[in-house]
Each structure stands twice: as C-alpha cells, then as structure tokens.
C-alpha cells in the first residue's frame, strides 16, 4: 500500500524570502497520501497549507526534503517532466480562473486539448457531459461574464475533472457554492476516488463537507499539528 501512494512527502522544509528576511514556512513535513483518498488540509491563514499544495502539485520548486508525485521525485525534475506530470493532475482554484473569452464548453475543452487535438466531436461531447453532471447543461455556450459565481466555479471543476486526472488539487472548491452545490462537487470528488482511484487533496475551511474526508490534516505555522481519519 505504501509503495502505491501517489504522494509522498519526506522531511520537507520550505522558505520564502532571502537573507535576513528569509522565513521558514514549512518544517520537516512528512506525509503519505494513499490512492483514492480525499484529504483535507486545514489550518489558519499562513499555516503553510497552500504552500504544501503547490509543492505537491509541482507548481513550486522543492527546496529541501523530498516530494514524490505519481512515482516521480519532484526535486531537480526538468521543465518537460513537470509539464508531463501536470497533465496527469487536475487543479481547482478558489478564484475559478476561467478564460473570459471562452465559453463554458471551450473552457472545459482546454482541460482535454492539453493532451493533444484528439477527436473534436468526442471532446465536445465529453465537455457537455461533464457540464451536465454539474448542472450546467443549459449554460454550455455561456461566457464566464454571463455566469454566476457558483456556475463559474462548477465550470472550473468540470475543466479539472474532464481529463480524468489521477490527482486533484483543490483550493476552497466549495467557497463560491451554496451548501447543496458545494456538497455535490465534493461528493463527486469522493466518488471519483472510490470508483477510479483518483486522489484528492483539498484546502478548505468549509465545515459542511468535513464528513466526506478520508483524512483531515491540520497545519499550524508550517507544522502538522493534527492528522485524523474521521471515517
């Protein structure tokens, strides 16, 4: 089971700034996240949870320690290797970050076309299916400017999930959603873990969805202060 873990963190330290202004954000972090689990990272602002998320998602350079993602050591990995790894991941951002000039369908298509041109009709059908699952079947040709905050967030979720990622990193995915919609999204992530073995790491403060987590890790000042399995 340990060897199958898609994410392994060992002795991870991370710093921001230089010289006298240099500040340590993470202290000797050790984590192993199993395949198909939904892990929630909690902690007050500045506790280091977002830094952990970006380091695991190969969006930030590992300075000290080891981060292994899907069997690849991230420290010293080349740009091409990182790009190839990112294509196996799904990111859901708090601020949705949809492309303003692309429709909902086109935004979701971006999640598919990163793997190559493919069959346009099939890609379009897959995008529409994913948007339908998230209750946006009647909004597929809407530009983000014409969608509500919750609808935008659901398009961003569809974009992250449409390419069947092996690991999903989510930052407050339910923050812009009402209770029901937020739960639908997180239940979907949970189901993906159970059916397809997708691993999800989520930063959230939303107490309404804590019961869905397989594991809750709490950080304070760059250290793990609590690591529980609510289920």
């Amino acid at each position: 089971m340990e060897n199958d873990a898609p994410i392994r963190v060992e002795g991870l330290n991370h710093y921001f700034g230089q010289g006298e202004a240099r500040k340590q954000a993470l202290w000797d972090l050790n984590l192993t996240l199993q395949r198909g689990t939904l892990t929630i990272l909690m902690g007050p602002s500045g506790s280091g949870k977002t830094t952990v998320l970006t380091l695991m998602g190969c969006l930030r350079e590992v300075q000290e320690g080891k981060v292994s993602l899907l069997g690849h050591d991230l420290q010293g990995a080349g740009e091409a290797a990182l790009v190839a790894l990112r294509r196996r991941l799904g990111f859901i951002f708090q601020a949705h970050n949809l492309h303003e000039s692309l429709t909902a369908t086109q935004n979701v298509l971006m999640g598919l076309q990163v793997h190559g041109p493919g069959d346009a009709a099939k890609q379009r059908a897959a995008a529409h299916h994913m948007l339908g699952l998230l209750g946006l079947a009647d909004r597929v040709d809407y530009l983000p400017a014409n969608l509500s905050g919750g609808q935008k967030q659901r398009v961003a979720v569809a974009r992250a999930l449409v390419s069947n990622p092996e690991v999903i990193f989510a930052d407050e995915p339910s923050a812009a959603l009402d209770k029901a919609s937020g739960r639908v999204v997180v239940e979907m992530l949970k189901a993906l873990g159970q059916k397809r073995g997708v691993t999800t790491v989520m930063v959230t403060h939303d107490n309404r969805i804590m019961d869905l987590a397989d594991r809750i890790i709490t950080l304070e000042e760059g250290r793990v202060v609590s690591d529980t399995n609510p289920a």
Partner: protein
Amino acid sequence: MSRLLTFLFRRLPIGWLQLSHSKGRLFAAIAGVAFTNLLVFMQLGIMGALNNSTVAPYALIRGDIILSSQEGNTLTDSGNLARVFMFQALGVPGVVAATPLYIGNLPLTLEDGSSIALLSFGLDTAQPGFVADVIAPDMARLVIENTALLDRDTRGLPGDALARITTGQPFAFEASGGTLTAIGTMAVGGGFLADGMMITSDQTFLRFFKSRTSGAPDHILLRVAGGLSAERVVERLRAVLPPLIVKVQTMTGAAAADLAFMSTERPTGIIFGFGVFMGILVGLVIVYQVLSTDVADHLREYATFKAMGYDQPFFLGIIFEEALVLAVFGFVPGFIVSMGLYAGLVAVTGLPVVMTAPTAIMVFVGTLVACTLSGAIATRRLAAADPADLF
C-alpha cells in the same frame, strides 16, 4: 473565422477569441496596423514614382551603350561631354553607330500665361534608330525647325491644346523668346523633374538652349554590331576613352545606376527610405503594445494553462496567432485605402504612383514579419505567469 482557425491550428483559436472578445482593442489594433501599412505603402508608392520617373526617359531612347560625363549623376542630371569622344568611340571595333543626345529643362508659356516645364531631348533626326519605336516614324517630321513631339500626359497641358495636336493641327507655344510648334504627341508622363517631356531635333534644341553648343552634348548613344555583347564593347571603350572624363555604361547599367543614385545619394530617396523604416517601426510598436497588454491582461489565465500542463510552444502559438490575425486584418484595409490614395495622387499630380503585385506582397510579408517580431518580444511577459501565484 473561429472554425477556420480551429481547422488550421487543430486547437481552440485562443488568440483570435481573446482579440475578438475585446472589440475596441481589436479595432484599435487593426486600425494601427492598417495605418502602418498605409504609411509604408505611401512611402513606397512615392519612392516608386521617383524611381519610375527617374528611368522613364530611358523609354524614349534606344541604344546599347551610353557615354556620359564623369561629372554627371543621372541621365537628366548630367555634365557635358565633348562630341569628339563620339568619333573616338566610332573607331572602336564593335561600335556601328553613334549619336549625341542633348537634354535640358525648357519652360513653356501657355496662352493663359501659365507655364509648364518640359524635359527636352534633342536628337539627330537622321538617326531614328536611337529613339523608341513608337516615336521613330515621327522623327523625320522634326526636321522642320522649331517643331516638337509633346508628351500628352504633361501636367498642366490644356485639354484643347492636346485635342488639337492629336487631330493633326499644330499647336504653338512660347518658349525662351521663340515659338515652338507641337506637331505630334507621345506618352511618358510627368515626374519630379518636370511636368512632362518633349523631343525635338538637335538643331531645334540648340536654338532654344542658346547657351548650349553642338560640340558638347549631355550623352552619346552608341549601338553595337548585332550579336556582339554590349558589355564586351564597354570594356573596349573603357580602354580607349579617358576614364576620369568619360563614363561608359550599358544602357541597362546606366538606368540601374540612376536608380541607385536616386535611392541612396539623393535626399529624396533617403527620406522616403527613412519614411518606410519609420512606418515599420511605428507598426512594431503598435503591435507590441497590443500584444504585450493582451498578455498582461491574461496572465492569470496563462498561469492556469501552465498549471494544467500547457507548455511554452502553446503560449508562443497563441501570441503568433494574434500576430497573424492582426497582420492579415490590418493589411487588407491598409491596402484598399492605399489604392484609393494612389489613384488620388495620380489624378492630382500626374506622378507615376503605381501599386505593383511585388510591392503588395512585400508589404504583406513585411507586416507578417513585423507582427511576428512584436509577438516574439511580447512573449517575454509570459515568464511572469507563475501558476504558484494562483493559489
């Protein structure tokens, strides 16, 4: 448009979608590129007219080799050459005929008191082989003193005068205190040097240019024996004639040298060349501004794409796609407006401002290159798109 670009790039045309999403910015960018095209087309058009009018006189004369004074610069801006060199040249093997050519600018006074300047060519009427085929049959008529063939495209020439001449009625003008009678026409057109052109006999020419003498023509035209290379005879002539005094060139070589002189030595050529350079520079700056602003406005989206696994070639593709769109969409209106302005310039000035296919293609390719170059510079801003900042 989206479907065409999707088919071309085999992906969503992000660049086009981004540009067309901000209609105002797209319109401003296209207007900027179109204006740049207009600037370049106008500079090239006027420079082309300068070049055309520089070599236009060569269409009037025939010959294989031309002897000129080393003091001269072009066919119409020449020094005088002693006619004795013509006799020397005739003694060189391969030279079978020679004639002196006199050139001067003659102001004509019209009936209404206005005046026009005519670039006048004086030639031996007994040697019609040294003028263009369409003029040669009329040379014999110029034996009559004080007669001339007049350029019917001359700027400022009254329509009724032209009508009279073309219907065979002679038309008299005042010039240099004498009366000159036009007995026929030819088509050359006005240029930067004069309003039009005129051919007379050498005798008539010398009568109206009193300070000139028959022994000092502007140029000497030579014809070489059939089948003989003009370049080879040029070498022989250079060996015989004093190189510090006489310039020996083939006719085509002289025309090319005139063009080079006007383009690189004369202020006008340099000014128009500089104008083209400035036009391109303005275009580069406009496209760079549009593209770099576009990159800056979409940094978060680009950072998101980076996080999703899109690589640098994808981002470069978007910028170059935008550059391509701006180049094509800017070129078309720039070209159309330039055509209209060319027509207006021709109507007003009579200058030979012509849009040629090579010029249009060159400007289009130049626009593509300039837009791509601007895009390449603008991509440097992409480095600022850090996906770690998204969280």
